């Protein structure tokens, strides 16, 4: 087990980015816009499923932003590092295993995902949405980051050019960000769309995050599906890395 240097590398780069105001601002601005526009603007005075829309949407935006931040940074740095700067050759001529690389990268994606979405929670609390009521919120939150960081690694290693990661993001990540119960309940959609959404991990993440945020019971099946998706993606990622240099 030697994933630490891979994790450390990403964290050193992340730390430098954080010190730049522009980076913080650009990660924060989109989710905050959603929060203000939907939570405070559109949703003011509306209640949904018995809670204020703000309290409804904060865990949804938290699911969304932990997903996008875990995914996109990882996917692009890996794709650019592999294809353009060739920095990944350094890992691949070092005696670390594909599992080490996977673990190090995924954990660094998790850190970014948790960081960005915790800012949403803080902003939500300031606007009056309160804090998560059930501790189950935290493992679900973590699991969501683990899933999408794993996707990020897979996308980064499969990309033939770094635009590929953006394509994948536009066709897969962005639709999920809107339809998987982040801004409105999935139940409102037609049956066949609902059926598709049921198989997407973010649907379960936003459901479980919302339930635990509001102090309601979390469906075990959601946790099971998320865990299964994570295990499959992690393993898939390891195999992708193993084959990538050949």
């Amino acid at each position, binding site marked *: 087990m030697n994933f630490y240097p891979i994790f450390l590398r990403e964290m050193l780069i992340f730390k430098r980015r954080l010190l730049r105001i522009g980076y913080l601002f650009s990660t924060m601005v989109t989710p905050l816009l959603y929060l203000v526009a939907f939570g405070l603007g559109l949703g003011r005075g509306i209640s949904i499923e018995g809670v204020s829309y703000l309290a409804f949407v904060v865990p949804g935006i938290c699911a969304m932003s932990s997903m996008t931040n875990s995914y996109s940074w990882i996917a692009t740095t890996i794709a650019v590092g592999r294809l353009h700067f060739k920095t990944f050759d350094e890992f*691949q001529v070092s005696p670390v295993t594909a599992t080490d690389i996977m673990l190090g990268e995924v954990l660094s994606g998790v850190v970014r995902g948790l960081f960005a979405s915790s800012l949403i929670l803080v902003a939500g609390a300031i606007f009056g949405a309160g804090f998560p009521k059930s501790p189950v919120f935290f493992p679900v939150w973590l699991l969501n980051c683990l899933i999408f960081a794993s996707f990020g690694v897979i996308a980064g290693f499969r990309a033939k050019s770094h635009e590929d990661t953006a394509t994948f993001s536009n066709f897969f990540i962005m639709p999920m960000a809107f339809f998987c119960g982040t801004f409105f309940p999935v139940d409102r959609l037609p049956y066949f769309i609902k059926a598709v959404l049921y198989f997407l991990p973010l649907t379960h993440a936003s459901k479980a995050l919302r339930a635990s945020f509001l102090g309601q019971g979390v469906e075990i099946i959601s946790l099971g599906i998320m865990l299964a998706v994570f295990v499959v993606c992690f393993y898939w990622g390891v195999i992708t890395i193993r084959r990538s240099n050949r």
Partner: protein
Amino acid sequence: MIITENLTKYFGQIKAVEKLNLHIVKGEIFGLLGPNGAGKTTTVRMLNTLTLPTSGRAEINGLDVVREATKVKRLIGVAPQELNLDRELTGRENLRLHGLLHQMKGIEERIEYLLKWTGLSERADSLVKTYSGGMQRRLLVARSIMHRPGVLFLDEPTVGLDPQVRRQIWDLIRNLKQQGVTVLLTTHYIEEAELLCHRVGILSHGKLIVLGTPPELKAQIGRFVVESLDDGVTNYRLFEGREEAYRFAQTRGDDVVIRESNLEDVFIKLTGERIER
């Protein structure tokens, strides 16, 4: 020790390396020469476990580069042709990460030593993207030997450097020679190969066309060259002895040069092409 047996790599229709047989002994500095696209980098990448051979095999210190790739990775140091340093990190951080990747002990002492050795101490804590090309190249070489590998691959370690920095890198390589490190060096600078390498092999279109010590190879073609300008084209004539060359030169006009032959002449003689860019 590096051994290749019929090592071959095709990229689709392109025959990048064909049936390469090498036997590089411990402590040898071996130079792989050839023009652009000859297959030098592909050979190095197969030996580094980065590229799978299409056929044939290779071993490093008795370990198969495909089947025992992880063990091979512990033995080797690699300075690739591209400057693949982490540009967003400092020089020191680049070296530290390398040490951690190899689970080294005494990382910080080794970093200090290498920074001094490469003359980068003062800039150690600046981001690599602020380094000049020559500084990056030196850091790349330092990183490749950070974990004290017994077998080192340097893919064009001096490409694009000014003569002064090139000499610095040569000194670094000479130091390694004294430490008994086995080095596979690729270059298309003839002078570099003659100066540093015990033996050289010349690749052309993926095939090894000559192999031997620089003096041997030069003796094969003739030790002296007369360059003369005939009708606007430089002609090369090779001679065994100085007198012979001199006599021939006198029969030519003013534009003649007599010089000792070099590996470039060997290559031109064999292929009709030039190696240096």
